[in-house]
């Protein structure tokens, strides 16, 4: 029985085709896991389903009836309920559990003006029992653990008696044991006959929960897996893709080691990570969400402290306490999610680009506007940034060009270690090639670490690929005739515990 059926769904924003014809269905009592890398279009699909966006073409049906939600509230009234990734969107932290569980009752028309606490609490207790929640309903939600809050958010969603429940990366901030509790709740809901769409790319979640896996890539369904046992490696391949690209790179072995990572523990209890990055070498660090990629980047840039182990730069101990110290030590980092982490929306191109090095462009603290612009124009030319002039507002640029500005920012001055976190995020293929080529051209004199999830991107830019899984190194590959099967197995964690070096 198909609870929800989607046929030929398309959605674009301006010229950007985000969904290019999605066909899929959800059945009662089944958990479908939707996998997809950043930018694959999962979140747009969810937003269309929950009524936040309209769609351009295609149809959606619920129990055989056409489903066309006008807004989020309308979607809920049709029985499509979403629990979003950010938990605190789903609960009101300052109120107690009972009120949170019953909140939708309070907003219903016809609800009494006065809140009868006793009745409310009894009704809430019933809901909680139903969901297998054990906490006291009088507890304030803010005092609960993240997992409990997540459960409350789901329980609140269940109060609407949904036909379709969408869970958007529900375990992203949960520990393993907390996740277990969530999974048993999901099992219970599956038993109650709810059709569940579960968005995640954590392999451990997927193994535990999935009845079926749907993979998305570039706005299309790139794979569907339903035969038991599920083909997890196939799913990762479908999600990340590894159609060998036509970029031809001359792989460098690199010179002297610059950055040495010595038995670094990325998270409590994870096996130590050791490797060294050499002069002129570009290393792609890849891995799924939760593999320790972001932790590694943040530790090197001084935003997190390692749980154990040390780092050295050119043989000297390096333990930055904050970003400023990292920059001072010649470690530069371009962050992912540029709009929150990098772009200064009020500034023009030149000022965005020169921001980290204003000291270089000033005399006695007074800025030398001309040399700022000179440097910016130079970088605009080198990276092929498409703009009218260096005083264009950053917001007038396309995503790819904005990203070039953000990368260009860190190429203005030579550095020892360059960290690029998802440098190709939200960037079209042309800009991606430009950025990649420029990073390779300038690689001499520094060690470059590129943190990417997509294997294509790693293969396009790196001399060496290091695969992280569960906070430790699962494999290393020189970027020559890479054994893709082994690589994907390491990414998805199905290769066995032994890290392999494929030189």
């Amino acid at each position, binding site marked *: 029985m198909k609870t929800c059926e989607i046929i030929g769904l398309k959605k674009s924003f301006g010229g950007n085709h985000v969904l290019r014809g999605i066909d899929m269905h959800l059945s009662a009592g089944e958990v479908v896991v939707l996998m997809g890398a950043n930018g694959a279009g999962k979140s747009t699909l969810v937003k269309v389903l929950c009524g936040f966006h309209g769609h351009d073409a295609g149809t959606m049906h619920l129990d055989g009836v056409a489903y066309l939600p006008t807004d989020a509230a309308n979607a809920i009234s049709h029985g499509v309920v979403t629990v979003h990734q950010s938990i605190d969107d789903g609960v009101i932290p300052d109120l107690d559990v009972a009120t949170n569980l019953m909140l939708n009752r309070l907003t219903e028309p016809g609800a009494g003006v006065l809140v009868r606490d006793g009745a409310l609490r009894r009704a809430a207790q019933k809901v909680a029992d139903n969901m297998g929640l054990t906490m006291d309903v009088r507890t304030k939600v803010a005092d609960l653990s993240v997992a409990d809050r997540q459960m409350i958010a789901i329980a609140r969603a269940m109060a609407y008696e949904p036909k379709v429940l969408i869970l958007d990366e529900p375990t992203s901030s949960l520990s393993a044991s907390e996740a277990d509790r969530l999974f048993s709740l999901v099992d219970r809901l599956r038993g109650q006959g709810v059709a569940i769409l579960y968005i995640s790319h954590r392999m451990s979640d997927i193994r535990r929960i999935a009845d079926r896996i749907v993979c998305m890539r570039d706005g299309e369904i790139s794979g569907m897996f339903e035969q038991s046992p599920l083909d997890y490696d196939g799913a990762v391949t479908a999600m990340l893709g590894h159609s060998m690209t036509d970029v031809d790179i001359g792989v460098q072995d690199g010179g002297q080691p610059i950055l040495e990572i010595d038995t670094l523990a990325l998270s409590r209890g994870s096996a130590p990570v050791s490797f060294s990055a050499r002069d002129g070498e570009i290393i792609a660090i890849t891995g799924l969400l939760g593999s320790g990629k972001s932790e590694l980047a943040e530790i090197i840039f001084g935003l997190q402290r390692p749980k154990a182990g040390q780092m050295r730069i050119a043989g000297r101990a390096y333990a930055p306490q904050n970003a400023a110290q990292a920059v001072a030590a010649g470690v530069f980092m371009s*962050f992912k999610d540029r709009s*929150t*982490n*990098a772009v200064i929306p009020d*500034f023009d191109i030149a*000022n965005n680009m020169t921001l980290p090095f204003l*000291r270089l462009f*000033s005399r006695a603290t*007074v800025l030398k506007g001309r040399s700022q612009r000179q440097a910016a124009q130079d970088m605009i030319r080198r990276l092929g940034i498409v703009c009218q002039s260096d005083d264009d507002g950053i917001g007038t640029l396309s995503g790819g060009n904005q990203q070039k500005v953000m990368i260009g920012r860190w190429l203005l001055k030579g550095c020892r270690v360059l960290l690029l976190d998802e440098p190709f995020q939200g960037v079209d293929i042309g800009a991606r090639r430009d950025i990649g080529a420029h990073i390779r051209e300038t690689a001499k004199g520094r060690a470059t670490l590129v943190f990417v999830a997509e294997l294509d991107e790693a293969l396009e830019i790196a001399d060496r690929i290091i695969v992280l899984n569960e906070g430790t190194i699962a494999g290393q590959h020189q970027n020559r005739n890479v054994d893709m099967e082994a690589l994907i197995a390491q990414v998805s964690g199905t290769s066995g515990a032994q890290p392999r070096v494929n030189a």
Partner: protein
Amino acid sequence: MTRETLLTFAIRFGFLILLFCMVIYFSLSANGFASPRSAAFILQSVAITGILALGVTCTLVVDGFDLSIGSVATSALMLSAYAMVILEMSAVTAVLLCLLMGAIVGLINGLLIVKFKVPDLLATLGMMFLLIGLQRIPTQGNSIATGMKLPDGSAAEGAFSAAFLWLGRHRFDLFVEKLVPVPVVIFLITAVVIWVFLELTRHGRLMYAIGSNERAAALVGTNVNRYKIAAYMISGVTASIGGILLAARLGRGDIASGNNLLLDSVAAALIGFAVLGAARANAFGTAIGALFVGILLQGLTMMNAPYYTQDFVKGAVLVLALVFTFYLSAKRSAGGKT
């Protein structure tokens, strides 16, 4: 002109044109408006709020706010009077004491916001009440003047020194004898200094970056906390300069909450958003904004308009400026020149 360029023109120069028209109108309709003396009066009447507004501009630049400036100014007023009249200190000591007080208040504001994570409005609101109360404690709520009775029964012997009063009362010759008062000169100097600091130095540029995207600024290695604290300290010091000039003009330590000073200077800074279509806090705009309010009030007073119409007009100008900033500028394409 196309619609687009017309809109851009209106955003950039609309407020300056309005200012110009106003000057023409008052010159024609108010007797004695168009004269060097009148210009000096206008500048004098906006000098103190203008100086405060320049300080609050610095906090607005880092996406903060300082509600305590009015009470910092009146605290400086009381402190300078207390120092000279009761403690019989010299003018220089009194001035330094006030500047130090302003810097310390700014430092505390900054630490509350940065270290203790108190939201800026709440931290500075608390500081405002604290100072309004604190400035009255040493004199049990009395104003300070020479000859006042002290708690021990004796009379205060000290007096405002001539050097101190000079700050508020002396006028420099410019074309006309005794034309430009000292506070106006200090206002202009402060405006230029703050403008240079915000627009031309890398520290100012980083403060704008913090105000626009604090996280991004931090991730390029900017010490965000230090700059935020610095912004509040600048605000505190400029507010205390305003208070010193107020004391020098009044010649006594009047108790006052300073709330009108706060509101007028915030209005000037917000009107400044609209000047030249900046759509953000800037020193030039703030100075023009203060001037705008000053010209309007001077003209209305000369035309015998009652006091309540002045508040009304002030409010109308502010609303208009905010529309300029938030509606028209938002219509224009994203991003701007820096």
